């Protein structure tokens, strides 16, 4: 399989997703003495085109590596960023690829990608329990880190009313609680 340049990767996403690609940005910095480049690609896609985008990642790399799914509570929406890496196994060729998708709080659902990347299961189980996003079609929807007696409907990473209530938080003696 031919490797695309970082801009080539972005162009291929533009071609594959057209208007569903909200933004694409290439971050580049130089490292150490020889000034070799360290590159990261950040993409933001419409939620309807999310599956298509992940399928496109799988076209670029046979077994893309999914590092983690990071999430933020944006108030009206929940943002998920899937951190992939592609083109690994080759000197200087690897690219980090952050694929962002925003889900409105009225409809917190995202399709599973475990059929494409089986190893994504832990990350998907974690976002279900931590931020309350329902992963549709997930083969194993049990909790991962939270204990079984943890109350339903409380999501530790949310900052709204479904976030951890005040009585669950303990402020160390001599400290004041901060706004997060």
């Amino acid at each position, binding site marked *: 399989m031919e490797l695309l340049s970082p801009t080539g990767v972005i162009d291929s996403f533009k071609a594959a997703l057209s208007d569903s690609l909200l933004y694409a940005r290439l*971050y580049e*910095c*130089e*490292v*150490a*003495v*020889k000034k*070799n480049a*360290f*590159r*990261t690609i*950040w993409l933001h896609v419409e939620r309807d085109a999310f599956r298509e985008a992940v399928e496109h990642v799988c076209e670029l790399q*046979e*077994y893309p*590596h*999914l*590092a*983690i799914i*990071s*999430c*933020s509570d944006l108030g009206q929406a929940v943002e998920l*960023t899937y*951190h992939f*890496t592609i*083109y*690994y*196994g*080759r*000197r*200087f*060729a*690897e*690219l*980090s690829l*952050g694929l962002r998708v925003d889900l409105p709080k009225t409809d917190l659902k995202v399709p599973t990608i475990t059929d494409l*990347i*089986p*190893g*994504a*299961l*832990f990350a998907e189980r974690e976002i279900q329990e931590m931020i309350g996003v329902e992963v549709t079609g997930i083969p194993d929807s049990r*909790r*991962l*880190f*939270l*204990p079984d007696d943890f109350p339903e409907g409380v999501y*530790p*990473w949310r900052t709204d009313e479904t976030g951890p209530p005040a009585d669950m938080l303990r402020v160390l003696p001599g400290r004041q609680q*901060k706004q*997060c």
Partner: protein
Amino acid sequence: MLEETEKATYTIPVGPIHPALKEPVRLALTIDGEEIVDVDVFVGQVHRGIEWLGMNRNNPVQTIYLAERVCGICNICHPLAFVMAVEHAAGITPPPRAEYIRTIAAEMERIHSHLLWAGVAAHEIGFDTIFYLAWRVREEIMDLIEYLTGNRVTKGVVQIGGVRRDVTEEQFPRIRKSLDYYKGLFDQLRKVFLDDRTIRMRTKHVGVLSKEDALKLLAVGPTARASGVTKDIRQDQPYAAYADLDVQAMTPDMLTGTVVGDTYDRIIVRLLEVKQSIAIIEQCLESMPPGPILAQPKMPVLLKTLANAEGEGIGRVEAPRGEVVHYVRLEAGRETLANWRIRAPTYVNLMCVPTMLKGGQIADVPIAFASIDPCQSCANRMVVTDRALGTRSIMDYEEMHRISVQRTEEL
């Protein structure tokens, strides 16, 4: 007949203490006689919500010391990945000399971690003589770490935009002395770990992970490389001084010519990596550029820059167990982190455990599980059920260890 076979399986809970390391993880082993049919992993017993804590610290600089405490062993890798993420988010470039010092610190950590693992692995199969040997030779690198950083464990050398302690020319002879000690020891270690009959019998074809499974289940680090996946961030997307040096992913075929993907191969990979680490530190000493060690030595200025910075960044570091990934988001006008996400190598390597253990024997669980070098404080226990008797029994670590030792004695 099939129904009878199903009735004959049994689930044994192993835990809540880890069967191999003294760390909390629970595995549910479904067994048929001695053979493992299915495995389920339960984690979360030591979930500390460290990311949440980090986002509630006063500023990113304070979070570095929290990142250091994610794991007692990888206390360079986590803060390093964290500061790299912050640097990428805020657009700070560390001076080249700092990159070299970071590399030296990270490689010293790899040597000590791999030797620690070698000792633990030997202990798992009841070979305590090697356990003592491995941990004794590990002291040399611990002394060196203390000499260079002032501390054996949480070193506190990494800072946003550089490092806090310089490695000076006068310290080079002491570093070289330690490296020479390990170079002289390498053949002995290789003989002890790779040529010993007992170790061969206990590790060959135990806990096999095929290349395809390693790729599908997102294995990282020595676990992936032992299965023939040439994946190493230091080679693929180099950071720090690795971008200047020649680093190659170590696979077992470099020594034996074949890739099996078993526990034995994981020993080979780690031994080769110790050798590689020594070579990397030597190269760093030779080509260390002069100059400052911090991009911004004035702390108030640095904090102001971070508070005004807007952006997101990802820091990736090849830790001894595999890749550590930190994601950071900074918002302008906000002193604390807007988002912080950690991915430790064990998080993904645990996904491979069921595949590795299936078809194996209970007595092989400790060594096969230990072969991924799991670290629960980073990622975050084992259950075995016997359907024949319809009872549940808890098998504790001592019992598992006893069976494992018994198996070695039988051989």
